[in-house]
């Protein structure tokens, strides 16, 4: 995990389910106002989406050229976040 002022990077590529989800849930509590989680994953995390919504977060997913996914996560009430 690497943390900057605007972003917390969670590289969960190659982790066994549900470890990527566990890491995201742990990271949510570290998130400060204005920060975004950048999750890297080898497959699209469909089960994560309803859980993020229940916790009040929104996500934007992008597929990379190598077939992996980048998911940006931030609070649903934050202004100027990434659109879904």
């Amino acid at each position, binding site marked *: 995990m690497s943390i900057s002022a605007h972003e917390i990077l969670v590289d969960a590529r190659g982790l066994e*389910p549900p470890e990527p989800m566990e890491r995201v849930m742990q990271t949510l509590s570290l998130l400060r106002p204005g920060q975004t989680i950048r999750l890297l994953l080898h497959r699209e*995390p469909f089960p994560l989406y*309803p859980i993020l919504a229940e916790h009040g977060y929104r996500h934007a997913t992008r597929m990379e050229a190598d077939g992996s996914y980048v998911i940006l996560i931030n609070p649903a009430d934050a202004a100027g976040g990434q659109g879904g």
Partner: protein
Amino acid sequence: MSQPAGLSFEQAPQFSLPLRFFLTAPLFLIAAAILIALSPDALASRWTPQVLALTHALTLGFLAMVMLGALMQMLPVVAGSPLPALHLVARISHVSLVLGTAALMTGFLTGKAAAYGSGVVLLGVCFAVFLVAAATSLARAVAGVTVNGIRFAVLGLTLTILLGVALALLRAGWWTPPAIESAINAHVSFGLVGWVLLLVVGVAYQVVPMFQLTPPYPPRLSRWLAGALFALLLLHAAAPVLPPVAARIVDALLAAGILLFVAATLHLQSRRRRKLPDVTLDYWRLGMASLIASVAVWIVAQAWPAWADSDAYPLLLGTLFIGGFAASVVNGMLYKIVPFLAWFHLQAQLQATAGSIPTMKDMIAERWMRGQFRLHLIACVLLLGVPFWPQLGIAAGGVLALSAVVLWINLLSAVRRFIAHGGDFY
């Protein structure tokens, strides 16, 4: 917005529904192991009451018990289509499977027609309820290779049950079906290959890439394999009326299809992303090795009639397939399913974040799962000797019973953690 193909909290059955199946199954494994240990003299032939009773304890009480519970959990996820009236279906099929298996075992052991009769009625209720619900769910399912495999497996189970009911009525003295030997062979091959193996094939397409982080199965294989194996099984059952050459070709293709699945699975597992030790992976590899050995033992019997007619051959084949292959894969999968569900339901109920609940890997101690795998492996090795030296059954049954007890304790430890962290069964 993406299509939600995953497990969402609203879709998932409550934890107690599949869990009752998973926690009952090891008890039948213990019962089978005790029968092996107590009556080594009866292990010399597949037709003794003890062997018939323990075989059905393994196939109905252990394998089918876990498989029905797992399908109730999986169908909403992989097929997007939950079982209708799930609570009712789960409760009825669980109670009737437990009582029906116990009654059938009693029927074999005591020879009492009343025990057979009640066993057949209860098992008939169990599978009628489950199969109608599963067929309804599958009819509405989103198409895919796993759903395709499950459809053929459910067909295989239906044929197994119909043939089993006919055979039980015969044994109870109520009815004499024609061609008994062919009916028994078809019951066994549809049960073990049609239901058990095809279900493992269909589920493998989903769980091997997901949990073992391998590339997907090649679509060229996964699209047709289950259907082809099922068609070959139908021809295999019809072998008595086929020309001998045609029957040989059907058998050879059946063996080739099974070996193709084994080869693809072992190849994918050798290409997994993270090469970390994993008990479930070891169980799968033991299962695949046993499946290769089963096919080898079976091929030898096709070429060598003296071996095919021996008492040891069907016992060895059954031990390799049921104990070495099916029980290993099911045992290994229990170590993913139960911890995953315990974690999943805690997460859902507590809306938990930040390490307030155990991770999935914390649910069962790795050391204990590893120890139980070793016991299972020793039991399998000892059991292979039983068809040749029945007295080995005392040790083999003893180790198998110990292995099943530790499996049960391990599964209960995940449930204990679930309860300790405030989990609710509803």
